[in-house]
């Protein structure tokens, strides 16, 4: 066992409602999970309470890995720091002008408030051209004056973003040095240090959001680390990034913008790993939350990375992140009939507060969860989480009658089935979007529901989309926390090159890759974590001249003894042709290749957890798991349905539908015609009976 694995590992995922904790004790061959309410606005209370539930003595814990929504929430609620921006003369408003987009195609309503208001955005004389030539040296006195003004305005952080600094960061670097000299402050973000990539709005936005988050996130992580150390913790504290890899807490404090989608990313990483161990490397994950359904596709064991995302209108973060497609159809999504007589689900949601009608907290419009309650799929006497005693079935039925049944001329049960049918159809649409529409046949894929609500809809989605099977992980409610424990450490680098393929300077490109590799390896070394392997992965963003959409072009590079052997122009050209052909099916005869960006990822592979640890122990037995029956409405009739305690089912147990499997964090519905089987890791594999 490697030193980093000595002792115990804890993954903590802080979500909107719950903080999930996963403890792995490899030496003892044991795992433990815990779920505590998330504390707001300061998430550290729930974080520490959750850890306390699984580990009394932090001195025995080797590693704590944290997936956090602190950054996302600070952006969505606009609760970042008071910051300033220093930029090139003439470009003060680029941040506020965005890319000249609007909130929604239809309606033309709404405005936009940037995270840095105009009076805290200062211009300084300086100019770099697109080819890197410095047309005008930066006016350092003007930079200093701007920094002083921002200090006087009470700013806690500053972003510096100069036009074309991706091509030559000289002016911007000198400005950053001047600001740092005058203003001893760890929170100075320079755009070329954070994202040396062409496109001034995206670079400026990412840099400004980094500065906006820095004081908050650094303070939050400091508090957590201080509390952990105070409790005797002497191991490594790591943070999950949006790209699904982890980084050291020092890196996270410097680049907090990389945590923007930290929590969901860890869940996808875990899902991919669980599925792969179970023997399925093609999987589509589906997380049914209160307001949304989040889908991600993993093909051949690899999840797709998106280059950027908008956290909210105009809040653009450009940093590689696991691609997750979201539609507004979750458990709390409201069902309604429009004036044209069509049944709709969402996008309006009752969320978790007031929540579904059945929660009895004042919402009177029916939700997807209410339909599940009325049809007996959710046990009204044992609601999941939330601290409720009992669910209000009659209230849910009345709301369904009033808002769906009556306008459509359906009785309560038919109306509830209708709600589920339309909700399932919408979820199926999201699955088609990430699979069929990207050229993947769903029949090859397993569906992995995680989060609290997904496993109720698994069989319906298998039928609707033609997926091969569903894999319900042993602890679907803590998948993201499990992902924290297994994620690799990863650093991403980018540099815009913007040259023709024939003019690619092999030596200079090699030097850039070397610099990225050196910095990345340095961060791996400094993290104190030990790795099974270290990889340098290189990709170019390329297109034909005249095209604006680039394709990612992976190019293998050899690293021996820390020395990078750069790819040749011919290898890059060949790799482009292969990537282009696989994307578009054909090459462009006579087209000229162009290299826009170089991307390097330095990955430290962490030892993998043996998932057999999660399997049910010797005490499990099918007999002990049986808990009688309940009437559940499926299709057009009631079925007397067998109930099981899911966690008590032993390895190898088979359960024929209809059946309900309950566990503290989720409810699984096996519909008639399907069979569930517990595999050797404790996953439930649901397939068509006889398949």
């Amino acid at each position: 066992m490697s030193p980093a694995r000595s002792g115990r590992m804890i993954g903590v995922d802080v979500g909107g409602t719950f903080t999930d904790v996963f403890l792995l004790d490899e030496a003892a061959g044991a795992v433990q999970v815990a779920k505590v309410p998330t504390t707001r606005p300061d998430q550290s209370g729930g974080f520490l309470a959750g850890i306390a539930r699984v580990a009394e003595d932090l001195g025995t814990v080797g590693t704590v890995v944290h997936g956090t929504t602190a950054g996302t929430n600070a952006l969505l609620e606009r609760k970042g720091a008071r910051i300033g921006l220093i930029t090139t003369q003439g470009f003060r408003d680029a941040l506020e002008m965005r890319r000249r987009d609007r909130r929604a195609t239809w309606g033309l309503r709404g405005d936009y408030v940037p995270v840095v208001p105009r009076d805290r955005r200062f211009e300084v004389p300086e100019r770099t051209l697109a080819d890197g030539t410095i047309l005008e040296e930066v006016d350092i006195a003007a930079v200093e004056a701007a920094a002083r003004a921002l200090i006087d305005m009470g700013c806690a952080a500053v972003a510096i973003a100069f036009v074309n600094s991706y091509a030559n960061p000289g002016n911007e670097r000198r400005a950053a040095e001047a600001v740092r000299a005058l203003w001893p402050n760890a929170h100075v973000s320079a755009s070329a240090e954070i994202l040396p990539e062409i496109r001034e709005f995206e670079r400026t936005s990412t840099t400004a959001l980094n500065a906006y988050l820095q004081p908050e996130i650094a303070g939050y992580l400091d508090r957590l680390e201080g509390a952990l150390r105070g409790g005797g913790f002497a191991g490594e504290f790591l943070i999950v990034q949006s790209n699904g890899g982890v980084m050291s807490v020092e890196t996270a404090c410097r680049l907090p913008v990389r945590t923007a989608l930290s929590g969901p990313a860890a869940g996808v990483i875990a899902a991919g790993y669980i599925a792969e161990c179970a023997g399925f490397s093609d999987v589509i994950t589906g997380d049914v939350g209160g307001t949304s359904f989040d889908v991600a596709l993993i093909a051949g064991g690899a999840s797709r990375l998106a280059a950027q995302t908008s956290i909210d209108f105009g809040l653009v973060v450009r940093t590689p992140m696991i691609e997750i497609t979201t539609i507004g159809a979750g458990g709390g999504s409201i069902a309604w009939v429009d004036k044209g007589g069509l049944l709709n689900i969402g996008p309006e949601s009752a969320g978790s507060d007031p929540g579904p009608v059945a929660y009895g907290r004042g919402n009177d419009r029916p939700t997807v969860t209410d339909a599940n309650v009325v049809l007996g799929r959710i046990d009204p006497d044992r609601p999941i989480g939330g601290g409720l005693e009992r669910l209000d079935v009659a209230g849910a039925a009345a709301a369904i009658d009033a808002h769906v049944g009556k306008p459509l001329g359906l009785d309560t049960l038919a109306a509830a089935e209708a709600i589920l049918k339309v909700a399932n159809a919408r979820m199926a649409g999201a699955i088609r979007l990430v699979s069929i529409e990207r050229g993947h046949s769903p029949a090859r894929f397993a569906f992995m529901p995680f989060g609290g609500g997904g496993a109720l809809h698994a069989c319906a989605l298998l039928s609707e989309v033609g997926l091969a099977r569903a894999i319900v992980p042993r602890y679907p409610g803590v998948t993201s926390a499990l992902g924290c424990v297994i994620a690799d450490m990863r650093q991403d680098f980018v540099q815009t090159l913007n040259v023709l393929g024939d003019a690619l300077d092999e030596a200079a490109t090699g030097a850039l890759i070397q610099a990225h590799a050196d910095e990345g390896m340095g961060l791996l070394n400094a993290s104190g974590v030990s790795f099974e392997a270290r990889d340098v992965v290189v990709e170019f963003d390329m297109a034909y001249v005249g095209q604006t959409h680039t394709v990612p072009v992976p190019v293998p590079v050899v690293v021996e003894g820390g020395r990078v052997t750069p790819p040749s122009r011919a290898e890059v050209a060949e790799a482009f042709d292969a990537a282009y052909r696989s994307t578009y099916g054909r090459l462009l005869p006579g087209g000229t290749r162009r290299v826009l960006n170089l991307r390097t990822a330095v990955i430290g592979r962490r030892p993998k957890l043996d998932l057999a640890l999660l399997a049910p122990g010797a005490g499990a037995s099918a007999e002990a798991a049986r808990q009688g029956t309940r009437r559940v409405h499926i299709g057009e009739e009631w079925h007397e349905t067998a109930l099981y305690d899911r966690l008590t089912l032993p390895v190898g147990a088979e359960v024929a539908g209809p059946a309900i499997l309950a566990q503290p964090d989720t409810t699984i519905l096996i519909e008639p015609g399907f069979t569930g089987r517990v595999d050797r890791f404790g996953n439930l594999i649901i397939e068509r009976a006889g398949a």
Partner: protein
Amino acid sequence: MAEIDPVTLAVLAGRMEQIADEMDATLFRSAFNPIIAEAHDASHGIYDAETGETLVQGKSGLPIFVGVMAFAVKAVIEKFARHGDVTEGDVFIFNDAHIGGTHLSDMRLVQPVFRDGQLFCYLASVGHWHDVGGAVPGNYNPSATEVFQEAFVLPPVRLYRAGELQQDVVDILLRNSRMPVSAQGDLNGQINALGLGVRRLDALIDEYGAETIDAALKALTERAGRLMAAEIEGLPDGRWEAEDFLDNDGISPEALAIRVALEVRADRLTLDFTGSAPACQGPVNIALPTSIACCYVAIKHIFPALPANAGVMRQIDIRVPEGSLLAADFPAPTGGYTETILRMIDVIFSAAAQAIPERVVANAYGTINALSIAGRRSDGRRWVMFSFYGGGHGGSLESDGLNHGNAPISTATIPPAEILEAAYPVIFRQWALRPDSAGAGMHRGGLGAIYEIEVMEEMGAQAFLFGERGRFAPKGVAGGGEGALNHFSYQTDDGWAEPPLVSKMVGIALRQGQRVRLETPGGGGYGPPGRRAPEAVARDVALGFINEDAATESYGDAWKGARA
């Protein structure tokens, strides 16, 4: 007609929308030309076998195409299907804007879909090609007086005959484009999108049966009509009028009136454009299909939840006078159609705001501002930087207007200055919000922008501008004020100069180091300025969005004591 249960209908509505969306996505991904790939200037949908009316349309295409594409299908029905002259495997293609609406850059492909030997419906694809011949590259010719100076005109002809590609037609198309590689790429993309649509629709029909799908399509049209009727019934009965003007047609200086009377009677709405200017010499004419599509765009902005389905239009009567610039006959030039439809949307908003001010936003900046700067490099290579520029949106009941938004007929984003500077020998000296450009109001308009561009190429450059709103400002609604006028100027050896026709000019010669400066309009304001919170005014002053004197003139003195 088979009955369809409401649950199956809800499921199928989503499935069919997804087919149209996937056709959009297929073309966006594979198109070679950035106008389609980046600006999404394209659209796809499913159309009625008998009437050609829109049944389902993709959500991500250009708003103006929702409504105009039915005319492409109708054109094919009129010319071919009426005479029994369509066969399985046929695909038709054309760009004639007088038949299909918009302008000649938009290439339309129409494919009949057969089921068991019977015509079931049509699929169509439209995309803005990079170049379709004519006098100027890119086909935005501000001095055109006939369509022939704008582009080559292709009437509806067969691209495929019973599944067989008509290479002769492809050869004619490509030989008439300055960018044949791009044209071929876009054509392939559109063919792929239609092919995908046919496959997906076939699979859906296999799953549910042709009768059920047909019933669903008809039910969706009924539903769209009911939705529109319900919205109109919620409006007060009455008649409201509005007028506005285009600066000129780019040829002669006369302003051109656009007038509308909006009338509501029970569940029907009439838009009557009687009194609008006659057809003009220059390219701000539009064809009748464009006018009708434009009415749909304006209505959907007011009622965003309406579906993209012809049923909506059954509740609306549109009267466009013959011979007006809103129903111009062949071969009147239509290349600048964007300016005219933006003004139509403005007058519809202004009229509707009198009836239902809470549902309507003030006028947006109202011009596409097509600015081209082009020349040759020292080594002889040609360069053309052509882009549209943004401006302010109108204020609404809920909020101020959006600063620097895109045009209501489009969803296109602007390329980054860094991408433009890397590709062309220019440097942006200013890329900024334009102070004092917002219309005053309880909720002010959004700010317009200032773009100042310097030519770096020692060979110099030529510029042209096709804009509007240089003489008539974007209006406020519900008592709100006007946004600032569009203002364009350029440097000459004798200092800064302005175009004689204000917002339109060709042949502007620029030397190295000389600049053009485009200051775009802000949006109109919403509600009386007197009702704007003093704190909001003080904040605008502190941010430099408005100068102190202008603030006092529009809003009085109250802001001076307020906390920003």
